[in-house]
């Protein structure tokens, strides 16, 4: 009989994951913060100048391989520049672009989502069509179109990343706002004659802040990937600026005889994006266990 009475599967989700909660956020957030801190502190570290060329030291393998040099832990590229130093300095720009691109998409996206979910009607219809249209434009193609017209620059890159990101926020926040606006506290505020902008910014925005935080985290990973793809294609940062994607483009040409030039920046991107995605998932289950998706 007991076998029949025992629940066959946990009612919702895995107890193990629910217990992870804040611990998981720390477990992924701390290494990520460490990587960010090391990149930020790169000028203070005893590293070779990332732009210093030395043809006599070109294409040195990583230190642990034969022919390696202890001064160049991860080897050097075709111009003799230190790969480790370039990864750390490149990380600064990569993170900067990721955060700027993310913010430039998150702020208008969230506001549009709030407004269209709250007012519904025409505003909502217009915003929703634009969201669909944005999703219909293949991102890299759109980026190519914009950058072909404007030329390569950091501001063009951030503009493109913002165009890429805003629709996601608008869509999700709109859906949250739609259900939020029917909640008693909002109805009460409206009955009390509180002006709509105040309801939106002072009362509804804090209620969707958790969702925005999760989206922001997940979006940073996507933005880093997008930036690296654009820089890889030669549409992103301009030399002598260094980003991980631009380093990969250099490494592609050396692939057959110097694998380390392409391997390490790619590993850096993958590690950071994986940590960001894990952090986003952990935050989602921590902030709202009910909304936890796989």
């Amino acid at each position, binding site marked *: 009989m007991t076998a029949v009475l025992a629940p066959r599967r946990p009612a919702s989700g895995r107890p193990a994951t629910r217990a992870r909660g804040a611990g998981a956020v720390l477990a992924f957030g701390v290494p990520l913060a460490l990587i960010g801190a090391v990149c930020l502190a790169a000028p203070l570290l005893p590293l070779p100048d990332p732009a210093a060329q030395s043809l006599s030291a070109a294409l040195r393998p990583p230190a642990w391989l034969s022919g390696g040099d202890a001064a160049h832990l991860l080897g050097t590229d075709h111009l003799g520049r230190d790969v480790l130093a370039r990864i750390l300095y490149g990380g600064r720009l990569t993170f900067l672009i990721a955060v700027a691109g993310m913010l430039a998409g998150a702020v208008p996206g969230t506001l549009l989502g709030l407004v269209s979910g709250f007012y519904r009607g025409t505003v909502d219809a217009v915003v929703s069509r634009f969201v669909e249209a944005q999703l219909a434009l293949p991102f*890299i*193609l*759109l980026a190519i179109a914009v950058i*072909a017209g404007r030329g390569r620059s950091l501001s063009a890159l951030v503009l493109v990343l913002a165009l890429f990101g805003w629709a996601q926020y608008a869509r999700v926040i709109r859906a949250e706002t739609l259900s939020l606006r029917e909640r008693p506290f909002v109805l009460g505020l409206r009955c009390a004659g509180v002006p709509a902008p105040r309801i939106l910014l002072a009362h509804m925005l804090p209620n969707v802040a958790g969702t925005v935080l999760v989206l922001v985290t997940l979006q940073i990973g996507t933005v880093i990937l997008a930036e*690296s793809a654009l820089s*890889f294609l030669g549409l992103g940062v301009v030399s002598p600026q260094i980003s991980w994607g631009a380093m990969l483009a250099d490494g592609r040409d050396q692939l057959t005889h110097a694998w380390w030039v*392409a391997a390490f920046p790619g590993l850096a991107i993958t590690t950071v994006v994986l940590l960001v995605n894990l952090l986003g998932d952990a935050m989602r289950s921590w902030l709202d266990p009910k909304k936890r998706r796989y």
Partner: protein
Amino acid sequence: MLRFLAGKVTRGVVTLLIAVSAAFFLARGTGDPVREMLGDLAGPEQVAQLSAQLGLDRPLPVQYAAFVGDLATGDLGTSIRYGTPNLDLILGWLPASLQLAAAAMVLAVLVGIPLGVWAALREGRFADRFASTVALTGQSIPLFWLGLMLILLFAVTLGWLPAGQSTGFSSLILPAVTLSTLPMAQIARLTRSSMSEVLGEAFLDATRARGVARWRVVLVHALRNAALPVITIIGLQTGTLLSGAITVEFVFAWPGLGTLATQAVQMRDFSLIQAIVIFGAVVFVLVNLIVDLLYGILDPRIRDGVA
């Protein structure tokens, strides 16, 4: 069904119009393509001449009207560098892209769906964690870097497979595997969550109680009900596939639309770039229209506007 169809088509056309207009204004309204094409050394006469030749000296609204008019008749303009109609160029380079995208999608479905089903059946156990790790890594890895590393391993070091160029079936393997990673990861994640939701439903217990075999319950009854969101993501993935294909085609020197696009960028062929962007948007909207219709066929509730 007809009303459902008409509604979807209208929405698709509106979406498309906004998308191409955005592409038009973003490219022309924010920068100076002629300056970009000629470089800083060009004199003012050269700029004026090329502007006139491309019709870029006219007021923006006039340009836009001409652009939409051409578009409505299926005219995507003429390539600046090749001198041939853009549409002909695109259609010439399209088959290789379609081949690659189709191979990648088949691979993504064949790996992603079983992985997701397996994970859902073993919720919380090793298989589940394994599948989730694979999926999350697949979503975090830059596709072009994965491509480079696969070339390094299978072409440079082991010499088993060709590193690129379209030369028969073996050259399709590496690019297709690379390109399938992202859709595979997303299909696996979605199948897993959708399946685990369906598996908890009572009608499956009822089916099982009627004596239907367990594999049949999972693969026929549960999977069919879990399929809807998965089909949506497959539709949405075509857009991503088109974007991802650009870097992957670049890495493998695959003679498809992505390579045509990167070449157009290098040659600053502004007209061709715009045509490819528009073509990409049309393909995406069409595929998603088909997905929406498929939805209506699979689930009558959506067609009749109940759900």
